């Protein structure tokens, strides 16, 4: 066959139950190019990648590598065919060194020392060729996220990958680290590698790819040269109908902060420390918290919502102290005071996966008189409430008896939000409002947050998505290494400015 593509997909389909995650996907990637795959969350990108990498088997359709039809039964087949994948969540053993991680599973000899030395020689050659400079003998846990990602890429190259799949590689990076990644991607391309670059951020597609395939609702909707398109066109292709933000902002002026953190210090995870946090959230405004994941946002949410103790300082809600060095208020009491909490990690914290949607509809409110009296659950009232949540938020499928795990991320989140706003809270604390949520639901959730703000509620939002924060916040505070680097009105904020602050540059804060 002449002019074969490095990797090609023909009519790939994959269903989960009634959901067609991929429907006749077509993909053609010429060798030695960077090929972008864009699509909203839930469009079916991950499913496609997992099929290309042998993690899922297609219901129908073919995968061709260099013109040869392949039948992958597991990732080792894909690797043997020269495909390497860098997952969104790194597959590294943290206490192991970079070198140990790279040879893990490909030691090639029972004698580890000999294997390491052989690998080292080969790695130094690879590093030279592609311009890496990794500390091979440093444990991974001591490395920054960007360096870990490079280790993952080197690992794939070490295994002979000619085609590299990068799944949302920039999700965890600062804008500056992104630039370094782009430079590396270009270098890999110059050396003849083929790269599949998967993202939902359009400026990245424009910056680094040669061609781009747009996926929407499981289907290929467009394939074109990057040079021949522009972000606006891609956005429209990606989203389908134009998304309109219709809720207008209202300006609110109040004197008392609904939530105030004064000189708060707290111990975080992995040796992180929250230092000297001062924040205020007023009624009728959305305060966004930006930052690269793992810089204290999780801990911040926890100290506010009664899940983590404060070492120094005070947290006020309205006029009342809800936390200081001796006091942690129980989340149930906080809810009764009018705080609602949409947890950052939905599956880990916000819902009980194996329980039904109905049982999840009362999580955190199980002690309210509405749902139990004398210690006995009011099953009828609970069922009615769950049904009402399903109705008002349009949660699908409309069956509250199903385990919450069998709903899509967006539908889970809609249910959680329904639960949390049901009692008309004065303060909403929201972590990652649209993580893992499909585009239709994203708009709805953003509109809902804005409506609550217009209704005079105080809202604190932590998000890893800058676009999201820029579109829903009134003010944005940036966290880095456990500190608030600065706070600014959204009118003054740009991605570059926020990016520098996320990397710890305090000069930008004014």
């Amino acid at each position, binding site marked *: 066959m002449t002019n074969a593509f490095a990797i090609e997909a023909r009519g790939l389909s994959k269903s989960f139950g009634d959901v067609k995650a991929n429907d006749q996907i077509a993909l053609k990637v010429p060798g030695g190019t960077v090929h972008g795959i864009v699509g909203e969350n839930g469009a079916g990108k991950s499913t496609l990648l997992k099929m290309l990498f042998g993690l899922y088997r297609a219901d129908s359709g073919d995968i061709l590598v260099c013109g040869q039809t392949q039948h992958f039964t597991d990732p080792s087949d894909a690797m043997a065919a020269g495909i390497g994948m860098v997952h969104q969540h790194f597959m590294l053993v943290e206490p192991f060194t970079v070198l140990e991680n790279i040879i893990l599973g490909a030691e090639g000899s029972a004698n580890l020392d000999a294997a390491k030395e052989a690998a080292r020689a080969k790695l130094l050659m690879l590093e030279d060729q592609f311009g890496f400079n990794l500390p091979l003998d440093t444990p991974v846990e001591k490395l920054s996220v960007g360096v870990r990602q490079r280790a993952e890429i080197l690992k794939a190259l070490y295994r002979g990958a000619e085609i590299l799949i990068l799944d949302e590689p920039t999700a965890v990076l600062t804008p500056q680290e992104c630039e370094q990644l782009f430079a590396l991607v270009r270098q890999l391309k110059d050396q003849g590698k083929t790269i599949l670059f998967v993202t939902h951020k359009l400026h990245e597609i424009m910056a680094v790819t040669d061609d781009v395939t747009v996926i929407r609702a499981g289907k290929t909707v467009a394939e074109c040269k990057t040079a021949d398109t522009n972000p606006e066109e891609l956005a429209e292709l990606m989203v389908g109908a134009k998304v309109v933000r219709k809720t207008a902002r209202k300006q609110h002026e109040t004197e008392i902060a609904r939530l105030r953190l004064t000189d708060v210090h707290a111990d975080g995870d992995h040796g992180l420390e929250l230092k000297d946090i001062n924040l205020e959230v007023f009624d009728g405004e959305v305060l966004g918290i930006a930052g690269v994941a793992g810089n204290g946002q999780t801990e911040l949410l926890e100290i506010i919502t*009664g899940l983590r103790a404060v070492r120094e300082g005070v947290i006020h809600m309205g006029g009342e102290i809800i936390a200081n060095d001796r006091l942690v208020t129980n*989340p149930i009491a906080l809810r009764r005071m009018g705080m609602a*909490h949409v*947890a950052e990690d939905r599956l880990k*914290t916000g819902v009980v996966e*194996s329980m039904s949607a109905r049982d999840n509809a*009362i999580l955190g409110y*199980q002690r309210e008189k509405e749902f139990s009296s004398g210690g*006995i659950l009011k099953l009828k009232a609970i069922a009615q409430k769950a049904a009402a949540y399903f109705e008002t938020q349009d949660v699908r499928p409309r069956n509250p008896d199903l385990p919450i795990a069998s709903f899509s991320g967006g539908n889970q989140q809609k249910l959680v939000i329904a639960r949390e706003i049901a009692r008309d809270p004065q303060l909403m604390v929201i972590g990652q409002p649209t993580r893992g949520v499909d585009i239709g639901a994203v708009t709805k959730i953003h509109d809902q947050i804005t409506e609550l703000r217009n209704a005079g509620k105080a809202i604190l939002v932590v998000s890893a998505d800058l676009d999201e924060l820029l579109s829903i916040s009134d003010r944005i505070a940036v966290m880095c290494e456990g500190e608030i680097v600065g706070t600014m009105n959204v009118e003054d904020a740009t991605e570059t400015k926020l990016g520098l602050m996320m990397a710890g540059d305090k000069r930008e804060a004014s």
Partner: protein
Amino acid sequence: MAAQKKLPFWADAILLPTLNLLAAFLVSGLVIWGLGEDPLEALSLMVDGAFGFQEGVGYTFYYATNFVFTGLAVSVAYHAGLFNIGGEGQAMLGGLGLTLAVFLVGDVSPVLAVLLAIVGAAAFGGAWAFIPAYLQAKRGSHVVITTIMFNFIASALLAYLLVGPLQRPGGQMPESADFPDGVSLMHLQDLFAMMGFTYESGPLNLSALIAVLCAVGVWFMLWRTRFGYELRVVGQNQNAARYAGISVTRMTVIAMMISGGLAGMMGLNELLGEQLRLLGNFTLGYGFVGIAVAFMGRNHPVGIVLAAMLFGALYQGGAELAFEMPNIQRDYIVLIQGLVILFAGAMEHLFRDPVERVFRHFSERRAA
């Protein structure tokens, strides 16, 4: 992404346990065949021994009563995310609490003694579970390790008491004096006689009814009360429990104590129903078999009662089999019980994957 389709309820609750059981019986049959006996005849002897005559049925249900208590004990802890394998020790301590209550007030009022004995059995069993529970909740010492160590401590404690302060005066055996007259749970055959009909149900006694009440109570607690809801949330997801304002520490301790209390009540059947004295080894491994009963019963009270009946039948039918077929000694009966535990408990998921594949195959064909 939508989750893969799981098995329908009936396949999970009935088909899989049946397959596990058949596999266990198949292997047992091979063993019996190897011993030179006819497996089918052995099976019919076992079934006959367990259900073929009045006293056999009585014994089957008598043993089943023990398993209901210990099975429920395992399941309550399991729903709170805890693996309580200390049922054996908790049952021993329950027996001790029961005995102390009996000797404390037995001479004053037999009725009061019985009531106090029920409370004592549950309280001592629960208290014995408290220490591992507290260590788990506060210090993170794993209950699997601590409860199993507490089994040994319980055994040693009972042995000491029964050759020391609690030993029958003048006796040589590790057992207590007999309970005072009238301090016992009525045998059901006596109850039947009072109601005007005859059914020779052997040692089967009122604690069987108490066991059924406990099963209903556990069901109600887990799925109808707020406490049960919170317990299940803790068992499924501790982060979500904290998020919902539930104290994981407190729930861990309470769930383990309920679990221990249920295990402790096993003594009602053995001691207050039949032996009428405290014996050093009265638990006979029922606490451990409770684990298999709970898993085979899918940790649901209805399933546990059914699984307990199965194990009761195995115990009783096995004893009859050993009696009828001299080639098959008592040890082989234990082997058969062991095979059932192995297939139903430890290798519970042996057939899950193939069965799921068959179901998926058919549902895809239907969809196509």
